């Protein structure tokens, strides 16, 4: 009741996990509600009538939708603890740019890998590795994307890492072999409790993908 926060989420969603990490970074208590996306609750439909999607953060009864927007909101409201965005406007612009890059590329490419075969799948694999290498380049030798501290870009990307096992299994490739520094970064992030307690188990994600593939008739 303290902060009056409800999170509407779906356990495999890498977007919902971003919000969980942000809430944990700020040490916030909240009510977690699992949605069944085949049977969306009246609350979800009321709080996100435009997209009818999760995650939705409900703070003092008012909804905020779209994971990056929710994370920025959390960062602005609880600004005194563990800031996720830097304070310098240029550094902030860079962080927003890279978080936007993650949004534009990773989800769709990952999805193509576990829903397609043959040439389409090969193209998606190649493109995903290309994007991860670009991100790896941006990370460079820094521990986290904006430097010494875990921040906004890390939150945006690390939640995909629990889906890597599923991508690798169905795409028959190794992300670590291609992007060892990025995988090292994911392990560094996982040492933080906010991350390890928010990410789903990669084996469970893989099992979920198996079920989805059956449902979509992919073989």
């Amino acid at each position, binding site marked *: 009741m303290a902060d009056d926060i409800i999170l509407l989420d779906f356990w495999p969603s890498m977007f919902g996990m971003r919000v969980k990490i942000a809430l944990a970074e700020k040490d916030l208590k909240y009510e977690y509600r699992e949605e069944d996306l085949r049977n969306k609750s009246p609350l979800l439909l009321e709080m996100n009538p435009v997209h009818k999607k999760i995650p939705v953060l409900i703070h003092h009864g008012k909804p905020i939708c*779209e994971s990056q927007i929710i994370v920025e909101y959390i960062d602005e409201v609880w600004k005194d603890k563990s800031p996720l965005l830097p304070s310098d406007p240029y550094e902030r612009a860079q962080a927003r740019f890279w978080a936007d890059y993650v949004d534009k590329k990773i989800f769709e490419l990952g999805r193509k890998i576990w829903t397609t075969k043959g040439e389409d799948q090969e193209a998606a694999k190649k493109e995903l590795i290309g994007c991860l290498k670009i991100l790896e380049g941006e990370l460079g030798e820094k521990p986290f994307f904006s430097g010494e501290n875990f921040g906004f870009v890390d939150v945006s990307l690390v939640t995909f890492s629990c889906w890597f096992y599923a991508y690798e299994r169905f795409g028959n490739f190794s992300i670590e072999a291609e992007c060892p520094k990025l995988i090292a970064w994911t392990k560094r992030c996982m040492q933080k409790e906010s991350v390890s307690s928010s990410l789903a188990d990669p084996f469970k994600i893989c099992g979920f993908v198996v079920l989805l593939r059956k449902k979509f008739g992919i073989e």
Partner: protein
Amino acid sequence: MGEEVKLFRTWSSPFALRIVWALKIKGIEYETVFEDLSNKSPLLLQYNPVHKKVPILVHNGRPIAESLVILEYIDETWKQGPLLPKDPYERAMARFWAKFGDDKVLTSIWSVFIKQGKEQEEALVATMENLKFLEEEMKGKKFFGGERIGYVDLALGCLANLISIFEEIVGLKIVDEEKLPLFYSWMQNFAEAPIIRDNWPPRDKMIVKFQALLDAAIASSSSS
């Protein structure tokens, strides 16, 4: 100490227009570099190696890309004439509507323009659904930002010009004044607002450009 502000853009890019408006609203002096996207300059490729697109804002030699990211940078760097509200919830809502504009509204309106037959009909239905949300959001307001033009107005603003251009080329009504009275008024108010009205790209050039794009799309879909 001088501020050096450069904007890399094309003459017609709706995303670049957002930046032109923001800079002018805040009274920021800047230099324009026009790009030919069929022959991108080495500077463009250096400043935006990831996407190789415009607009790019270069401030004191440091580049920022992606128009909505640039708008937030401008708002945080030059505090006069604020574009985003101060309250975190209102800011989240502004960001939400700008993203909705890019992800859904622009996409469906583009489909109405570029597609034919059943696909066009479906795009019209989707557009109407999307615009109804914006209509709702306009209740009691002159602009999305309230009394003054703000972030959401700039994000959606290109629609105030593009929609009428598309309607003229395709011969279809996309925004019916009776069905979407508030959104229709917003389009008029925004298009004629000071600064905005002085910076539209030439309409005749736009008609030629988009007609050519449509002709090419029809040609390639009928030859496949």
